[in-house]
């Protein structure tokens, strides 16, 4: 009998029968990336896949839903000015000098080992986050935060100087009890080391500490979210199972919803596509196929799965080198706004997005995401107008030569156009734009490099050294935390600051800078909207970068799968992990993909 069963199991395996899906109330997700570690409370790597997977195992005081509205998770309520949870402290002149948010922890909020989540866990997290020895990429805004415990379940986090988005973000938490001993070992081992001269030795000690809790060999021992990790086969898959100690219960009971989630790591996106088509995976992660592959998948759906194109917070654009110290910039008048405007009028972005992206990636007119509250709807649009482009070029002294190419003072209007080599979508965009610019007399020479070259700080930040003339790439920013940093002159990369800073075109505008400084301390949303309105007007008039479109994220899911959704606010389908389920298993639909 046993041998018959073994034979049957063997046959089923050899025949490749897929067992994923509603049959055993599990979910199989395919992704092209594997995280280096998971549930690192201090997020010392900034990979999207890490954030997505952490979503299943993590919990937060408050979080954002698909609409960008805050909801309470560990906290009892969302602190606001109206309910007194969020407070602004002002001086006599009415300027905000500090701000604070008070959180009450739910009585039933527990770690996966059953112990209560307390203010100590937030204090421990903040202490480590602020520690000079810990390699967090950026400590903003936590470097100016302080936690005061009010009682066993309530604490206040105060920002001094004030933090503009204090009510929009909440501090992290770490299981202080289970990490205490390892942290103390790290602390004593590195206490006498100078973080400036012994950086590597300190980092090695840090790695030893954090690796004991976050890796494939040392799975997180205690987590707070709806799922806990149970198996990680490095290079292959990661399995998480439902955490019985998680406090929020989906409609009808947790047993009606997905019980295990498996991530399959498939680095080649074509192979990932084959996995979707062959029904091996139930859904794709937000970190997966390219846009073109998404279109292919959509064409082959046949009712087996559905493809979604979710507007993201990623802005595709072309920076124009505006550093006047660069001879070529001077020669081509790239530091003259008329020339930049003419370059924008010369290209038909609406036709481009329609042809390449079926209109799914809408044209952008400013650097602010259209879903953000700060977005200026009526910003100057620069609709395709070659006649206007030619007039602006002529205004700046550029006249067509015998070969049709614009010329001035014996110099031809010929510039290099760079992007990440091998990115098929960008390379196609380049070719279309090159042809459109040629039609108005602009000679564009495509000069691409691998992304490792383009995104090396000394290249992307090397505008002042004339490393590039026009550079096409993308930025991602949370639309609810928009600060306008990308174009503040304080962010211009130069040799003096080690080419750090994100104002890659080197654009400097005194009025924009003034408004940006004001907006950085303007706590009234309506007033900030006004400031950003003017900032976008200036920016759209000056066009330091040519805005192209906001990208979409592609993913698929089988029709029966519910509440596997996300937006540019919630970012990953794991944001609502506790409610992901199969309709055939009795799960109720609470979120639909928009």
């Amino acid at each position, binding site marked *: 009998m046993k041998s018959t069963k*073994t034979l049957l*199991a*063997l046959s089923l*395996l*050899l*025949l*490749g029968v897929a067992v*994923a899906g509603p049959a055993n109330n599990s979910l199989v997700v395919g992704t092209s990336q594997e995280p*280096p*570690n998971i549930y690192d409370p201090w997020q010392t790597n*900034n990979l999207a896949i890490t954030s997505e997977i952490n979503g299943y195992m993590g919990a937060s005081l408050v979080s954002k839903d698909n609409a960008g509205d805050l909801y309470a998770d560990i906290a009892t309520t969302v602190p606001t000015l109206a309910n007194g949870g969020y407070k602004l402290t002002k001086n006599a002149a009415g300027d905000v000098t500090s701000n604070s948010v008070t959180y009450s922890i739910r009585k039933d909020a527990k770690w996966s080992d059953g112990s209560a989540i307390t203010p100590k866990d937030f204090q421990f997290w903040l202490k480590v986050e602020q520690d000079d020895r810990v*390699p967090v*990429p*950026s*400590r*903003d805004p936590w470097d100016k935060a302080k936690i005061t415990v009010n009682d066993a379940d309530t604490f206040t986090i105060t920002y001094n100087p004030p933090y503009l988005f204090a009510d929009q973000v909440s501090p992290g938490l770490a299981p202080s009890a289970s990490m205490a001993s390892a942290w103390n070992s790290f602390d004593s081992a590195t206490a006498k080391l100078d973080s*400036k001269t012994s*950086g*590597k030795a*300190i*980092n*090695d000690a*840090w*790695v030893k500490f954090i*690796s004991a809790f*976050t890796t*494939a060999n040392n799975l997180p021992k205690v987590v707070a979210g709806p799922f806990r990790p149970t*198996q990680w*086969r*490095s*290079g*292959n*898959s990661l*399995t998480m199972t439902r955490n019985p100690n998680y406090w929020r219960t989906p409609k009808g009971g947790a047993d009606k919803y997905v019980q295990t989630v*498996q991530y*399959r*790591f*498939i*680095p*080649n996106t*074509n*192979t990932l596509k*084959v*996995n979707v*088509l*062959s029904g*091996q995976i139930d859904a794709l992660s937000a970190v997966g196929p390219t846009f073109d592959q998404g279109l292919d998948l959509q064409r082959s759906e046949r009712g087996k799965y559905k493809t979604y194109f979710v507007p993201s917070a990623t802005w595709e654009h072309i920076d124009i080198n505006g550093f006047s110290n660069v001879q070529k910039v001077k020669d081509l008048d790239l530091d003259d706004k008329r020339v930049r405007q003419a370059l924008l009028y010369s290209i038909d972005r609406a036709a481009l997005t329609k042809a390449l992206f079926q209109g799914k990636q809408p044209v952008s007119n400013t650097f602010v995401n259209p879903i953000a509250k700060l977005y200026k709807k009526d910003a100057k649009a620069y609709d395709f107008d070659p006649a206007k482009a030619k007039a602006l070029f002529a205004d700046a002294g550029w006249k067509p030569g015998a070969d049709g190419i614009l010329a001035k003072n014996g110099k031809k209007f010929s510039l290099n156009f760079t992007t990440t080599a091998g990115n098929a979508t960008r390379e196609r965009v380049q070719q279309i734009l090159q042809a459109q610019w040629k039609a108005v007399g602009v000679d564009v020479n495509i000069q691409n490099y691998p992304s*490792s*070259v383009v*995104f*090396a*700080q000394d290249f992307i930040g090397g505008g002042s050294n004339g490393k590039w003339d026009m550079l096409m790439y993308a*930025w*991602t920013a949370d639309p609810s935390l928009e600060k306008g*940093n990308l174009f503040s002159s304080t962010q211009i990369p130069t040799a003096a*600051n*080690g080419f*750090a*800073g*994100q104002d890659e075109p080197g654009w400097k505008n005194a009025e924009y800078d003034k408004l940006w400084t004001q907006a950085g301390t303007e706590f009234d949303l309506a007033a900030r909207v006004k400031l950003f309105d003017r900032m976008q007007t200036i920016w759209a008039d000056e066009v330091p970068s040519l805005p192209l479109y906001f990208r979409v994220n592609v993913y698929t899911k089988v029709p029966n799968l519910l509440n596997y959704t996300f937006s540019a606010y919630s970012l990953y389908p794991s944001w609502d992990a506790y409610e992901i389920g199969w309709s055939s298993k009795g799960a109720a639909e609470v979120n639909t993909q928009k």
Partner: protein
Amino acid sequence: MATYTLRRILQMIPLLLVISLIIYALTALQPGDPVDQLTLGNSQITPADIARLRAAYGLDQPIFLRYFYWLVQALHGDFGWSRSFSQPAFQYVFQNRLPNTLLLTVPALILALLVAVPLGIYSAVRQYSLPDYVLTFLSFLAFSTPVFWLGPMVLWLFAIYLPGITNGVISLPPGGLGSPDLDPTTASTWAIIADKIKYLILPLCVLAFREIAVILRFMRANMLEVLSQDYVRTARAKGLPGGVVVYKHALRNAIIPIITLLGLAIPGLFGGAVITETVFSWPGMGRVILEGLVNKDFNVVLAALTFIALLTLIFSLLADLAYAAVDPRIRYD
């Protein structure tokens, strides 16, 4: 022979040092570093943050100093930390990835030999016959078929088209190392082996495909050369049966150059498996090099490439020694 072997082993030490320096320089001098990845898209990051992170990762030191520290550590068996995989680079490459590559490459090589050697002999013995033309055509086809194309085509065929036609009877998994549903702690050994075989079949065949063509062409050429030699003609003239002439007299000499080919094929397979492993999501050494380069995880790349360099030196020595063992005309003393 012993003196020769010892001399070759001693020569390997400076050679390996030079190779490691070149590998280190090539990886360290490429544009970008791990800090660039952390800073990209993070508009909050400040120049002070960047300087702090570079110091923490030891990237603020001059390249020769970094190489020196790395070399000293490597000589103690410590190849540094892998940032992408959050474990020691040596441990990750050799414990996690090397067994997978061996599982893929060794059977691929054995399969290639089992198929290519008899076909090469057959092709040579029946030179200019129809089967010879067919095998020549197929081997050139295999030569010119890039793995990055063949891999996805095989995936599509076995994962999508065939199951569609056969109602799922013939289907093989589209990539991966094994069924994530299979719990190795509870599943039977047979179930684990069967599962592994299921995932191994497609990448193994794709990897062996080109090797078959290489060995087949090599075997055919060697065999033709040997068959035209005087001693073979003499053997035939003496009236020995064709099979004895070919398999007893000619084959022994024709197969000697294959030893050199194999000596270099084994380390070559480790590097050559990059695309196969990537297409089939097979977590092996080839993929680790690619992922390491993409993620700027240089410690992993250095550990893997140094190992391949060492393997190349060792197998080229073994090939030379094997040459002497099988060919009485070669003496190293």
